[in-house]
């Protein structure tokens, strides 16, 4: 066997594991300890307001999920079954919408809707649908395009109309994918924070928003901790249900290895494809266009003043608003740079350790994925209450926000890198060994070179995540250190068209930067199979 020395594997693993213990396990333990004190638990659970919040969170998530699935099935079908001009542009557009920061989507709907509709739950549900459409199109479409079309043809030859082919054959067969997509959409909408903070009326709160309000506005840390754990419990139940449902409905499908798509034949089919694809594109494009339009809109007409005077923070002579958009851009960029560096170093080293340690690597892998299953608000709250007193009084440290962002981003870096490293043929290392390379040298020359490209993808993902991160930052950022999402939320919450226009300018900048980063990720991934 030509294995790496254990000491080297341990040295690689120790950094990521220590970071996980200090910045995730410790805050989570503190949160648990806060929540399980009898008083906090009984007081929070007895409060009727708690159950009002839980009920609202649940029903808006269920309605958002159902509407998203219903709206998404048509474009999912069209994308899966038809070849048409602009198909990949549509998929890219929906995906870009999905990765936009939540505050940007919230801002976009605020910009789009008339005053009578914004700050209502319908605005929230609309934003959730536009946001998550990509999940349905990609997850359901991925299964649908590989279902043999002849199964649908067989049903048609047995007398089934198109509608009955859909309800009797296609729908039952794509049900596992619908369940998977519904679970993802439910998880995102149940833990909705940014959209609610921007779009919902002040008294309308999801559990996430209530956790933030209790911890930062009311100082009720115990109550916030109980709610955070209550949320985790609901999410765990939803995940278990989803896993069981997917297992129950999964069939041994004779899926086709290649997707079979065809061009629309008749005029009716062409109109159908155009309406479904165009409608989906509009759901993504219209809110984002509204964002740009509103950044040029002032009471006296169209103006570029919000763009050109972004650095002017005086509302009236001598009166400042307290949020400096230019500072927020600078803060976001420096936070992004540090968060990306932390995430890339921790994630890259962890990926090498995970693949080198083989069986034990799974343990590290699983541990590093935990932050993915924990909402950013819960992570932020845990860090807030843990690093607020000696021996770890780090609240004022400049690096705490980037570390919080890195914690959310590391799972993405690890997933991107481990997938590639695991696909490196072990025979190559063995071949290097037969040519006289010692284990470390063989590993360094055959495995490590494959790390750089996925690490680049991971870095771009981490940068996008950091730029849009709002949940954890809401707890950790301090006055003067506002990042873009925090500044957008604050500006859009103020009265005054100029301030709101500045909020829309920042949201537009954030949207454009995120889309550019996603394009970088796509480009790097497209070339990933090329030699390192």
């Amino acid at each position, binding site marked *: 066997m030509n294995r790496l020395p254990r000491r080297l594997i341990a040295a690689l693993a120790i950094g990521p594991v220590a970071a996980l213990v200090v910045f995730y396990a410790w805050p989570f333990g503190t949160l648990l300890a806060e929540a399980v004190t009898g008083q906090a638990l009984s007081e929070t659970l007895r409060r009727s307001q708690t159950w009002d919040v839980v009920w609202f969170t649940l029903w808006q998530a269920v309605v958002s999920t159902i509407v998203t699935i219903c709206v998404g099935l048509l474009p999912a079908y069209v994308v899966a079954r038809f070849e048409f001009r602009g198909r990949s542009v549509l998929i890219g557009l929906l995906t870009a919408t999905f990765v936009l920061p939540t505050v940007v989507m919230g801002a976009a709907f605020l910009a789009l809707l008339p005053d009578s509709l914004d700050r209502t739950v319908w605005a929230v549900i609309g934003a959730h649908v536009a946001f998550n459409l990509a999940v349905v199109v990609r997850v359901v479409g991925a299964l649908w395009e590989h279902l043999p079309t002849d*199964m649908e043809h*067989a049903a*048609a*030859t*047995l007398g089934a109309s198109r509608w*009955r082919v859909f309800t009797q054959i296609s729908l039952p067969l794509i049900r596992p994918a619908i369940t998977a997509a519904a679970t993802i959409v439910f998880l995102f909408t149940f833990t909705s924070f940014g959209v609610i903070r921007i779009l919902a009326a002040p008294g309308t709160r999801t559990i996430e928003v209530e956790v933030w309000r209790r911890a930062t506005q009311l100082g009720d840390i115990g109550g916030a901790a109980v709610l955070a754990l209550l949320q985790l419990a609901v999410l765990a139940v939803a995940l278990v249900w989803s896993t069981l449902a997917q297992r129950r409905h999964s*069939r041994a*499908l*004779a899926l086709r290895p290649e997707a079979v798509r065809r061009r629309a034949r*008749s005029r009716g089919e062409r109109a159908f494809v155009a309406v479904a694809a165009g409608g989906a594109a509009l759901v993504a494009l219209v809110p984002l266009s509204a964002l740009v339009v509103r950044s040029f809109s002032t009471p006296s007409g169209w103006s570029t003043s919000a763009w050109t005077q972004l650095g002017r923070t005086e509302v009236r002579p001598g009166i400042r608003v307290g949020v400096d958009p230019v500072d927020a851009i600078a803060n976001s960029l420096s936070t992004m740079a540090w968060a990306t560096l932390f995430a890339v170093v921790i994630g890259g080293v962890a990926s090498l350790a995970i693949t080198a340690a083989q069986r034990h690597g799974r343990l590290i892998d699983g541990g590093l994925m935990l932050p993915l299953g924990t909402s950013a608000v819960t992570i932020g709250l845990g860090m807030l209450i843990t690093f607020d007193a000696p021996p770890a009084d780090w609240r004022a440290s400049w690096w705490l926000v980037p570390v919080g962002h890195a914690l959310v981003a590391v799972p993405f870096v690890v997933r991107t890198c481990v997938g590639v490293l695991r696909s490196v043929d072990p025979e190559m290392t063995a071949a290097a060994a037969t040519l006289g390379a010692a284990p470390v040298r063989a590993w360094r020359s055959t495995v490590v070179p494959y790390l750089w490209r996925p690490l680049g993808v991971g870095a771009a993902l981490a940068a996008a995540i950091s730029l849009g991160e709002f949940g954890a930052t809401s707890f950790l950022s301090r006055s003067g250190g506002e990042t873009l999402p925090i500044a957008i939320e604050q500006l859009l919450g103020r009265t005054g068209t100029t301030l709101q226009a500045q909020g829309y300018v920042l949201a537009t900048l954030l949207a454009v930067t995120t889309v550019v980063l996603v394009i970088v990720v796509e480009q790097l991934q497209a070339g990933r199979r090329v030699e390192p």
Partner: protein
Amino acid sequence: MTVPVAGHPRVADLDVRDVYVSFGDTKVLDGVSLHIAGGEIVALLGPSGSGKSTLLRVIAGLVVPDAGTVAVGGVAVTHVPTHRRGIGMVFQDDQLFPHLSTLDNVTFGPKMAGESRARRDERGSVWLDRVGLAGFGPRRVTELSGGEAKRVALARTLAAEPAVVLLDEPLTGLDRELHDRLAIDLGQLLTGVTTLLVTHDPDEAAVIADRTVQLSSL
């Protein structure tokens, strides 16, 4: 349904006239014409890629021809959607519905025709019995062997009582012994049913069909 339980499909002749199909610049069918008398079994032979399956798909309404007509029982169906043509088809890889039981697969056609549950289950059981699979109704189709799946696919098509049955290489992928046994059964089951069988195996055609034609001669 006007036909009694387990009755044979209606008998109608099939008329294909001057069918042209091109995929891009490739001419797949170049003016194909074919007539099958009511109750006749015709085997269509031709090498792989010669357009045999495309012709079946044109007849079933799954491929729209560039030109030409298809008529069943003297009625033009060229522009009638597949589900209203009364043409059944057995696909090369069976295409059984994996989420339905064996019986529910067989009774899918009667269900689409609006037949009551009790009546179609009775019909399904009779057809399962006819194809030698009595008692297989509750089984999952994913648990069937290759030969059993082919029998279920045939029973499913015939239980819908189509006017014309199309078979696209129905015995491909079976071992020789099973293939030969099924070929004989197929010939018996299809007796009196207007059938177009696509195959590349002349022996199979001889066992099942009343008449054999080469696609190149059409």
